[in-house]
């Protein structure tokens, strides 16, 4: 029959009927829509926040540098807790040995880190001082945006010079000109030789709130309780030419250090070697779990919204039993009645879904601009959410709609 040729007109009629019905009970419709809106809003936002966390972690790892191994003097217990009693050692000589003997290494950057107080006349901030060598710039891709980075002669002469992060620069040199100025680090005067190129912040961690000084200067001038011997370092970054070299290099570093420290066969390494690849994988898994948990929690509110839809549709069917009977008397088939109520539920859900999406976009924007936390909502998320809310409508509107379509015409017509 011609109705099969005219499905769009059919749906159009159902949408018109739905709009009339929804307007008739405007307050009720709005409240029901609100339930779906909140559900869709929270699911989208959960997805967005999860995506944002992943982006942040990826950025964070990128700021470390790529194709890099990190060696720390902590016993390698696998995933178990560190045991401080077995604290190992790592020295600058180890770093030199790694640089010379491990193939594929392009730079080794030993480090000592220490919390310090940085002051100019009248201003003072606490920040992290990193005692490093010029190699740090190579492995971690750090450059100075103004002035210069550390040089070998800075390190060999234990010069009192510092390259400072933007955050520190802005706080203690609010006038703007920092390079060439003198500041005091733990009361020792240092000359600012450069400003670090900004790396931004992720997950609340400001990558620009730090200063870099020569490793030798830090050791001599700024007391470091962490370093035990005159040669001790807290960690070293080992940069490799490529990923292949990194994979092979991780093993090489381990066996080299085992030999240097004469670790007996079967004993736990007194040091730990992690690669950026491993770190990325581990944190990637964590953020995925984080996202899954967020979405699962948010889904509960969507479920509640769906139940609200079902509830209201059941009420609507009961209230309009007589109308259903009339429509059947006038020639409506079961599927006509079913579709009418399905469309009504879907319209509620799609309106709610669109509102939820709008709200989520606003919230994501607010997150990004106020909290500096990326919460990207892509087209896929947007489309998914609208499709999702339509599905909610069909699933939770389905039962009431089928119930309506199964009514006997005469009993429906007789109901008051």
């Amino acid at each position, binding site marked *: *029959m*011609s*109705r*099969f040729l*005219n499905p769009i*007109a*059919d749906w*159009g*009629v159902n949408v018109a009927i739905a709009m*009339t019905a929804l*307007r*008739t009970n405007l307050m009720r419709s709005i409240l029901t829509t609100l339930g779906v809106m909140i559900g869709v809003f929270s699911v989208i936002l959960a997805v967005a926040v999860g995506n944002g966390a992943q982006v942040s972690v990826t950025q964070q790892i990128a700021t470390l540098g790529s194709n890099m191994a990190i060696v720390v003097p902590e016993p390698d217990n696998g995933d178990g807790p560190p045991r401080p009693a077995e604290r190992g050692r790592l020295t600058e000589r180890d770093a030199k040995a790694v640089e010379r003997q491990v193939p594929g290494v392009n730079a080794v950057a030993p480090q000592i880190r220490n919390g310090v107080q940085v002051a100019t006349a009248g201003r003072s901030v606490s920040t992290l001082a990193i005692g490093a060598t010029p190699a740090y710039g190579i492995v971690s891709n750090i450059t100075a945006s103004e002035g210069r980075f550390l040089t070998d002669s800075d390190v060999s002469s234990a010069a009192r010079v510092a390259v400072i992060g933007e955050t520190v620069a802005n706080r203690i040199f609010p006038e703007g000109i920092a390079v060439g100025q003198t500041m005091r680090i733990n009361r020792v005067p240092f000359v600012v030789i450069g400003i670090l190129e900004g790396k931004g912040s992720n997950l609340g961690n400001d990558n620009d709130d730090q200063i870099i000084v020569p490793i030798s200067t830090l050791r001599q001038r700024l007391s470091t309780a962490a370093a035990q011997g005159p040669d001790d370092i807290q960690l070293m970054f080992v940069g490799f030419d490529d990923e292949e070299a990194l994979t092979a290099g991780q093993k090489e570093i381990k066996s080299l250090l085992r030999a240097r420290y004469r670790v007996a066969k079967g004993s736990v390494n007194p040091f730990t070697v992690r690669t950026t690849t491993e770190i990325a994988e581990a944190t990637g898994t964590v953020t995925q779990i984080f996202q899954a948990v967020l979405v699962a929690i948010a889904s509960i509110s969507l479920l509640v919204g769906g139940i609200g839809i079902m509830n209201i549709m059941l009420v609507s069917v009961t209230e309009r039993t*007589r*109308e259903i009977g*009339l*429509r*059947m*008397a*006038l*020639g*409506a*088939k*079961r*599927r*006509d009645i079913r579709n009418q109520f399905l469309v009504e539920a879907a319209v509620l859900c799609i309106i709610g879904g669109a509102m939820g999406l709008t709200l989520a976009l606003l919230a994501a924007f607010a997150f990004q601009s106020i909290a500096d936390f990326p919460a990207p909502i892509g087209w896929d998320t947007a489309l998914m959410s609208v499709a999702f809310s339509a599905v909610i409508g069909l699933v939770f509107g389905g039962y009431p709609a089928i119930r309506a379509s199964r009514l*006997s*015409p*005469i009993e429906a*017509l007789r109901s008051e």
Partner: protein
Amino acid sequence: MTQPLLKTHELVKDYVIGGETVHAVNNVSLSIARGEFVAIMGASGSGKSTFMNMIGCLDVPTSGTLLLDGTDTKLLSSDELADIRNQKIGFVFQQFNLLARTSALDNVAVPLIYAGLGYAERRARAKAKLEALGLGERLENTPAKLSGGQQQRVAIARALVTDPLMLLADEPTGALDTQTSLDIMSIFQGLNDDGITMVVVTHEPDIAEYAARRIVFRDGIVIEDEAVKSRRRAAVQ
């Protein structure tokens, strides 16, 4: 016109109420020819409405056969019954049963939705029927803005919009005053003159006198089935 429009054979409708079976319609066999004007009478509970609901394909018989335009309705699916209600039967109810907050035009167009017609065609046909019933000025009025007589005329337009063979009216004048009732009966007589088979269920003897044939129910059976002797003609408007 050899084949009757409607023929029942030993039609039965039982209801089970509180464990007891009540024969609402008990072995009714009769036929209605095309072009007849039949009044079905009886007290409340006599089975006249149940009978009407069955011949209107709104309710299914417990046993017996019902031939409508030569088709045994027992063999039809619910979708096919819906098509019969849509194409062959027009219903007029005591309480008009118009959709609230919906214009006269849209109310009349409802059956055409289920007939599968497009928007423009639906509106054109509905408009023509409303104009034929003198409601050309009231197309966009909602039921709340129409008098009882006007509402019933909208309902008649709706019943006629698919050009059915038969109009079934259940107490069509029950909610109307005397003069308006006469107007409605005059419309029915005019439609009947044009060839539509009319079946009117009523408990008012005066209304039944506008019909040509009177069938009286009592306790589920037909106790009287005869031609109306002094048939009234409503004044032609």
